[in-house]
């Protein structure tokens, strides 16, 4: 029963969806504060390469090394986000062009490739990787076992992160302030909220989460370093935020939906399906486009949930 195709696909949806959960959650926080960051792909890749570097070099037991590696990945993502934050918040550059620049700077063929080369990381498998750790009785339980329990710690942490984000944005004063900053920075400023500080904090948090998302690739899904490892997951994460109407809970669902399509080529190949692999590999991208069309054309027109201040620099003198 656990080898039935549906269970396998759902289990791989959770596995492949997890990096998307982190990255999209991070982008969601940044966008809720009004900063659009199109550099997710670049931040993920730098997180992936630095996390991988850390796990190869931190001495000590596996779990410890992995925790440190995730920390390093988050830090690397934060540093990348800082460039974007400085350019668009302090220097008021175009958020779209700056985000694209970040992806070119950090992404495949950029800093992540440079670091991977310079630290000679390619070719070796990770010395530690995230494995499923729950007792085997749970993991082999019918149906729910492979889907929910045969997963790594990163999956469970991502659930906690989503729950925290829901609570933070919906139930805390800080979270409500973030929403005010994203919806109407001028009004938030008048209320005494420091727009610049909020925007910086959430853009950086978004970078940290994107870094962790990248590390989910290099430390769990394909525990090695290859240039361009994430294969556009960062862009899917950005689409996911739109698709989820800027709601953390929906991000989780959406990530697993896209995760299912990302995992599908491997699942089908393993089962000896002989249709050209390119057709399956194109699925996540085509589904992203279809989902976006659906979301933008339905009653959701006029950007259901998009923060009104998204993408616009806030200049106090010009409000």
């Amino acid at each position, binding site marked *: 029963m656990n080898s039935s195709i549906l269970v396998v696909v759902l289990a791989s949806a959770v596995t492949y969806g997890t990096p998307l959960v982190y990255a999209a959650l991070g982008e969601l926080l940044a966008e809720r504060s009004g900063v659009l960051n199109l550099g997710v792909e670049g931040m993920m890749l730098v997180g992936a390469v630095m996390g991988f570097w850390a796990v190869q070099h931190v001495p000590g037991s596996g779990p410890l090394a992995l925790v440190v590696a995730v920390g390093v990945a988050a830090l690397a993502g934060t540093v990348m986000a800082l460039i974007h934050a400085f350019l668009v918040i302090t*220097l008021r550059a175009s958020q779209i062009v700056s985000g694209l620049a970040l992806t*070119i700077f950090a992404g495949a063929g950029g800093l992540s490739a440079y670091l991977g080369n310079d630290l000679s990381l390619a070719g070796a498998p990770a010395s530690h990787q995230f494995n499923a750790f729950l007792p085997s009785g749970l993991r082999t339980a019918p149906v729910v076992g492979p889907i929910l329990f045969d997963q790594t710690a990163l999956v469970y942490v991502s659930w906690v992160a989503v729950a925290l984000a829901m609570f933070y944005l919906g139930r805390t004063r800080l979270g409500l302030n973030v929403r005010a900053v994203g919806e109407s920075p*001028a009004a938030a400023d008048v209320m005494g909220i420091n727009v610049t500080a909020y925007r910086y904090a959430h853009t950086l948090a978004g970078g940290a989460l994107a870094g962790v998302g990248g590390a989910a690739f290099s430390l769990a899904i394909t525990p090695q370093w290859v240039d361009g490892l994430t294969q556009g997951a960062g862009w899917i994460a950005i689409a996911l935020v739109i698709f989820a109407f800027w709601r953390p809970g929906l991000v989780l669902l959406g990530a697993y939906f896209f995760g299912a399509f990302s995992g599908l080529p491997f699942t089908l190949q393993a089962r000896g399906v002989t249709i050209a692999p390119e057709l399956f590999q194109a699925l996540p991208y085509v589904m992203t486009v279809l989902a976006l069309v659906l979301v933008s054309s339905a009653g959701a027109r006029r950007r259901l949930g998009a923060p009104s201040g998204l993408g616009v620099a806030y200049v106090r003198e010009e409000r």
Partner: protein
Amino acid sequence: MSFPLRIERRLRQPWWLSAAVPAGSLVVAFCVIALVLLATHHPVGHTFTRLLDSAFGSRRSLESTFVSGTPLAFTGLCAAVAFRMNLFNIGGEGQLYAGAVTGAGAALVLGGVPGPVSIAAMILAGAAGGALFALIPGLLRAFFSTNEIIVSLMLNYVAALVLDYLIFDSLSYWRDTSTPDARVFPQGKMLPAAATWPGLHVGLVVPLGFLVAIAIATIVHVLYARTRFGFEVRVIGDSPRAAAYAGMRTRRKILAVMALSGAIAGVGGASQDGDFRHVLDPKGLTQAGYGYTGIVIAALARYNPVAVCAIAFLLGGLQNAGYTLQGADFPSGLVGVMQGLILFCVLGAELLVRYRVRVDRPSHRPGPAAPVEADAS
């Protein structure tokens, strides 16, 4: 806030600023690049000299720079044309592939017709292929207001997979299946000799594609600066609301500009077939990331089509040097890092054109904030 720096909008922009600031930001960018090199223990001076040398140092390196710069001129124009209207087509990459497929198809179908006919057909077919592919995000944006950034980007991946499929995983029209050997090691059909684009020999060989790009840039410049169409595009770009009130048809402009943008990238794809590769070559086309560099070029040129060609040549030199030098003391990835840093610096310096930065002396610091004025928005 008691921050000692204040940023004020400039009321007048001195004429020299718009030249001095980009130049200054380039200097800053190269300083930062030097720091990156130092931090990773690469000799700075040596790397820069070798870079310049292998990009512009000899006739041969200049010729290779033209080879690298040609596709970049097309993708740069593709981005500039669309970005000018705040239409962020980042699908230049995929549209170039589409043009390469249709351009190669036209050359193969026509076979041995005279050269000029074949070349014209390839340009037209490439333009059509790129335009049609760009119309997917264009139509979705115009009719469903779907985010064109993500759609055009996703289609880049799809186009790359289609290329792979045509050559590696199917018995398509583009694949060479004439010999048993070619069936085992998949490759594209060689294009007929008539489909080879002649270069212009002026001491060194300038590819026909680059000249086509300059011609297109000139046409686009006239179109955007001198016609009603271009005026409306610029108004829509600067203020969509004003355009709507003036009765401009935004939807049609989105379709037209997307098609134009894609067509330019598509001609770039045809030029890849005709100028350089003479075969539909998925690996070569997808490795270089022409589309993304095109965005950098468009931004550096401030969407000015003629400047795009010049900057494409310069960044082509960088890319060409990256290939030639690739190895221990010039790690791959450095080219992307340099492009990104240059773009960051130019973007950041834009502020200095529009605003002035003032240092507040403590004695001159204004007292408590002025009363809040009514919110204009």
